[in-house]
């Protein structure tokens, strides 16, 4: 997953053997395929626009792929066709298919060549929202089933967070041609390991200087505002420049200094005063921009909350953040 232009397509093309690499190795199932041409790698590739061969039927498209499969019988082929639910599309010309149908045919065709790895390049970019839902709910299941039956691993690229979250067992975040972090979706969302990832996820990212560290408790100056953090054990001892990451959902807004969440009693808390700069809807949540002087924070609040506490632009609010929800990362120095 990564923003447009970060190199996702290039990475897939390198794995498929369609692009030469400058250095390094590509190893699939223990075999070094770096010097092998694409036709010898057994890697299936489905581009974003599916690339179904024109002026041919669905059947002919799949046949062309099936001809080259080794060790795949007609039974297996039938299973794939049933799995992707394209039995009644076989005699249709590819031009007459809808995007969702094209996608399923493209995936079936790639699987018909019996690859060890299946590469899907932004498979949902050509689909409308309802069909994307279908992909997340059904096709994802079909691919996991394909893995179960044929042992085919799938690498799926996207720039859509929701899609990655719904589909991926493991996620790698890419930026500028580098992989920033690999892990389960929960790990990445909870503990983004770099400034880029935190920003990509829409979190608050602030540069700061450490004032004091003691027993995992840190005080950081983020620009005339001091934030206290807890539980940051994995920072180097004499660290000075750091990045502070706060999730918008962890910022509570209140009309008074009084702590709103009763569960927080006894926990260390940051309470700051600021002014509401603006508010907007994002999906089903309300995002609020709060100006704290030298620092701006994005908070996310539940629409119901607005009934209790009428937040308006220009109003003064108290920002409450639990110390244990403030993450501190060492600043990366690029070598």
């Amino acid at each position, binding site marked *: 997953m990564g923003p447009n232009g970060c190199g996702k397509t290039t990475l897939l093309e390198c794995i498929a053997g369609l692009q030469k690499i400058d250095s390094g190795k590509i190893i699939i199932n223990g075999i070094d395929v770096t010097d092998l041409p694409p036709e010898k790698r057994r890697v*299936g590739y489905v581009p974003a626009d599916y690339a179904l*061969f024109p002026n041919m039927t669905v059947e002919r498209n799949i046949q062309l792929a099936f001809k080259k499969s080794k060790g795949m019988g007609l039974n297996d082929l039938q299973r794939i066709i049933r799995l992707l639910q394209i039995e009644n599309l076989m005699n249709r010309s590819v031009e007459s298919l809808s995007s969702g149908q094209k996608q399923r045919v493209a995936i079936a065709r790639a699987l018909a060549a019996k690859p060890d790895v299946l590469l899907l390049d932004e498979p949902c970019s050509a689909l409308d929202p309802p069909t994307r839902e279908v992909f997340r709910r059904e096709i994802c299941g079909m691919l996991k089933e394909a893995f179960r039956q044929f042992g085919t691993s799938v690498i799926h690229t996207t720039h859509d967070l929701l899609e990655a979250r719904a589909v991926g067992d493991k996620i790698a975040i890419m930026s500028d041609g580098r992989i920033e972090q690999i892990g389960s979706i929960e790990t990445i969302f909870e503990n983004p390991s770099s400034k880029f990832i935190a920003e990509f996820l829409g979190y608050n990212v602030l540069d700061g200087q450490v004032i004091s560290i003691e027993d995992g408790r840190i005080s950081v100056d983020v620009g005339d505002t001091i934030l206290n953090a807890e539980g940051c054990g994995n920072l180097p001892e004499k660290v000075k420049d750091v990045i502070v990451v706060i999730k918008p959902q962890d910022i509570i807004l209140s009309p008074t200094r009084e702590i709103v969440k009763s569960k927080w009693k006894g926990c260390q808390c940051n309470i700051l005063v600021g002014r509401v700069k603006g508010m907007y809807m994002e999906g089903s949540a309300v995002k609020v921009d709060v100006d704290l002087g030298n620092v701006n924070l994005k908070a996310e609040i539940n629409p119901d909350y607005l009934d209790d506490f009428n937040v308006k632009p220009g109003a003064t609010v108290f920002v409450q953040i639990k110390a244990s929800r403030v993450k501190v990362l060492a600043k990366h120095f690029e070598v």
Partner: protein
Amino acid sequence: MKPNVFRVVVFSFLILILIFFICVFTSPAIFVDPWQLAYAFISDEVRFALSLSIFTATCSTLISLVIGIPVAYALSRLEFRGKTVIEGFLDVPIAVPPVALGVMLLIFFARNPLGMFINESVVRIVFEVPGIIVAQLAVISALTIKLLKETFDGVPARYERVARTFGYTELETFLYVTLPAAKRGILGAALISWAKALGEFGATLMLAGATRFKTETLPIALYLNLVAADLGNVAALSFILLFTACLALIATRKLLYGGLAI
């Protein structure tokens, strides 16, 4: 409503041109004796010219395709130093007047040692039927390559890459994926090249000469019969040439655009 002057002018020009060409195309029928015309259509000379033209045009088109397809594919897919220069160079034979091309071919085969070797030891070209094929080839090949390159440009490289991942080698991909996808364009290029070869006159005249019943293609026959003032044959030959041109056009349009309209 005030008449739109611009539209009136544009339509007048259109009608003028149409009338002009209609008059020109129908003149042979109207101003030549119908019996002369009918007799000419079944005369030995016209029949010979027709079959020779079809034979030579088909040969030169086929050779043009066999050479042109790999060349056009390379120009379309490969990147190499000097590619722009080569592409520009290939535009020259299209722009050179065929008669000049024919003279240069004649000098090559009659004076250049390599050309002389081919002419004397491999196959007689100067003033012979193979010369017709060589002349037509020289005139149409650059155009064929250009049209074929455009066809291959229109087949996205993506299809070929996907085919490679199935396990097809580069050659297999070219045969099973690229060529079928380029089918229509190739046939269209073939038709246009064939029509151009059929009508080729200047280069043929220079290299193959204008020998009755020997190197007499349709255009050459037209020339010879005009010089001999045989109007019946001239009219018949004009019609045949006009007819084959229309046939090639209709066939090309149906192929490339699936109908008569673009």
